[in-house]
């Protein structure tokens, strides 16, 4: 099936500082009690938002000035913990099209690829600068360019990285892997036949 090629994401930014933000915080488990992903965006960072509100502060996701943002800015080990795809689903459904961060958990990264939401990395200083630029001017246009491998905020440019396989999947529009995996099923069957625990032939 034809899938969208993802080469460049443009839009406003949403800075979300902090290391080790886990998927329980992104979407608390009680909102996983459903057989669909619908409406998850309404509960994105629900508990963090409420706790900050109770303390008289506002979570970035609830900040009016960042409404409509499409590029999420995060720090290290974002999306650690539970494998729940509900986390990137909630972020994507909220309107985010790309994430720029210092690092990600592997499962979160893979889940995001499967949704067509690139999670690119940049160094600590670049993230600090990007977050500051967006905080100072929430209207600044961010560009995440997967061809040129750079993120830009207005006239400022930052080097980004993305594993080559994921990058190619986005650029070529092959990030939904299922079709590809089904392409040559006879080769899958051949591997299965060679495995003693599948074939039942141990000797």
């Amino acid at each position: 099936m034809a899938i969208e090629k993802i080469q460049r994401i443009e839009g406003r930014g949403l800075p979300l500082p902090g290391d080790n933000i886990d998927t329980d915080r992104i979407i608390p488990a009680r909102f996983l009690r459903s057989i669909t992903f619908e409406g998850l965006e309404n509960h994105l960072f629900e508990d963090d938002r409420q706790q900050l509100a109770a303390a008289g502060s506002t979570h970035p996701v609830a900040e009016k000035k960042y409404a409509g943002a499409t590029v999420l800015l995060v720090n290290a080990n974002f999306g650690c913990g539970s494998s729940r795809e509900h986390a990137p689903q909630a972020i994507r459904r909220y309107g985010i099209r790309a994430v720029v961060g210092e690092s990600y958990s592997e499962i979160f990264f893979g889940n995001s690829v499967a949704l067509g939401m690139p999670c690119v990395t940049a160094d600590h200083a670049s993230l600090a600068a990007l977050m500051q630029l967006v905080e100072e001017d929430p209207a600044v246009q961010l560009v995440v360019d997967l061809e040129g491998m750079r993120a830009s905020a207005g006239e400022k440019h930052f080097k980004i990285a993305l594993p080559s396989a994921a990058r190619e999947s986005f650029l070529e529009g092959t990030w939904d892997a299922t079709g590809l995996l089904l392409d040559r099923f006879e080769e899958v069957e051949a591997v299965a036949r060679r495995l003693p625990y599948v074939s039942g032939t141990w000797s």
Partner: protein
Amino acid sequence: MGSTLLEKVWDAHTVRKLPNGQTQLFIGLHLIHEVTTPQAFDMLRARGWHVRLPERTIATVDHIVPTRDQRRPFLDVMAEDMFSALERNCRDEGIRLFDMSTGSQGIVHVIGPEMGLTQPGMTIACGDSHTSTHGALGAVAFGIGTSQVRDVLASQCLAMEPMRVRRIMVRGRLARGVYAKDVILEIIRRLGVKGGVGYAYEYAGDTVERLSMDERMTICNMSIEGGARVGYVNPDQVTFDYLRGRRFAPQGDDFEQACRWWRSMASDANASYDDQVDIDATSIRPTVTWGINPGQSVYVDEPLPSPSNAAQPDRAGIDEALSFMGLTAGSRIRGTRIDVAFVGSCTNGRLSDLREAAKVIRGRHVAPHVRALVVPGSQPVRLAAEREGLDRIFIDAGFDWRGAGCSMCLAMNPDKLEGREICASSSNRNFKGRQGSPTGRTLLMSPAMVAAAAVAGEVVDIREFVNGD
């Protein structure tokens, strides 16, 4: 140059190199549960596809099951919906489901090994990050998201990036009162919660070799808390003895042949590793988490860290954690009053865990202000415990004795913390809100330490507690 188990299993399951450079990897065993799969079946249907090799997928129900009254339909309508969807999907696609009526239901990472479904040399995937547990038997096992569950259902394969291997050599005798849980908390504390990203952890050394299969599972289970998606122990005689006679393990002559193949999949003595870390097991003391990620732990008799003494990048994290937990820098975790005690989960919900907890509470009683519950990891664990009379010990001590499930590890069922309650928990995650109350607080520790805390009403040092007998 020899190869690691990871390399051997990877090679044996490689279908082909994909155009983008990833590996198409055959998945030998796919485990599913009710939370992360209904959307995957919907995606499959939307494309007009079916499950390609339904005999290679096994289902159970664990996350949302109530542990007090498990009769159907569940009183909780959402839980009933999710269970019904799983039943319908399994029926439509010819997938075997181990529900409560089978006597084999339980946490997916408990029942896989228990039934002998999990075997050395396999690739195992499940929509749950604690799938690393199965590595204890020498499998390459990892958590996946729902879109990848769809991929496995459709093709029995995943598109994967290669992994590096870090060997973690643990040497020396564990001191009294120190358990597998303390070993893995030590490893995570030392290497950090993101230290394992990109790596599979191979746990080795004489300490690991002496551990039982249950204990090895506790360690592999929490690999993901250290950032490693995969953790494994090379299969050895302990593994084979564990598997012999289990329902889905090879039987008769096949078993001996299988042992030969399993042994051949273990890392070679001259294998090369991308990294190696040495851990001195003799220096590990009973460990308790004080913060909001599993790397934030201390020995029970050690002072809590202080942001002012910490390296600059860690300061904000320590500050945030202490403030959420309501704890003071420099104070001791010992003596922290608890409200709830939870023994269970895929980390520590097996028979040997229940035995250790029961040993501590025998003849004692839970403190009056503490709500304590034991949730066996599976129906067979529960039954075996009852045959030994462990249920009586727990009930007499004032614990609730519950049905099998994930329960208060992540509180997707009615077992939850309330308000700012503090829970001494044998589970795996102390994230903010993890146990069902957004402001609830979790202290991770071994099952024996949980039991001791339940009795004392506060965090105690198990070594002194047992001495006081």
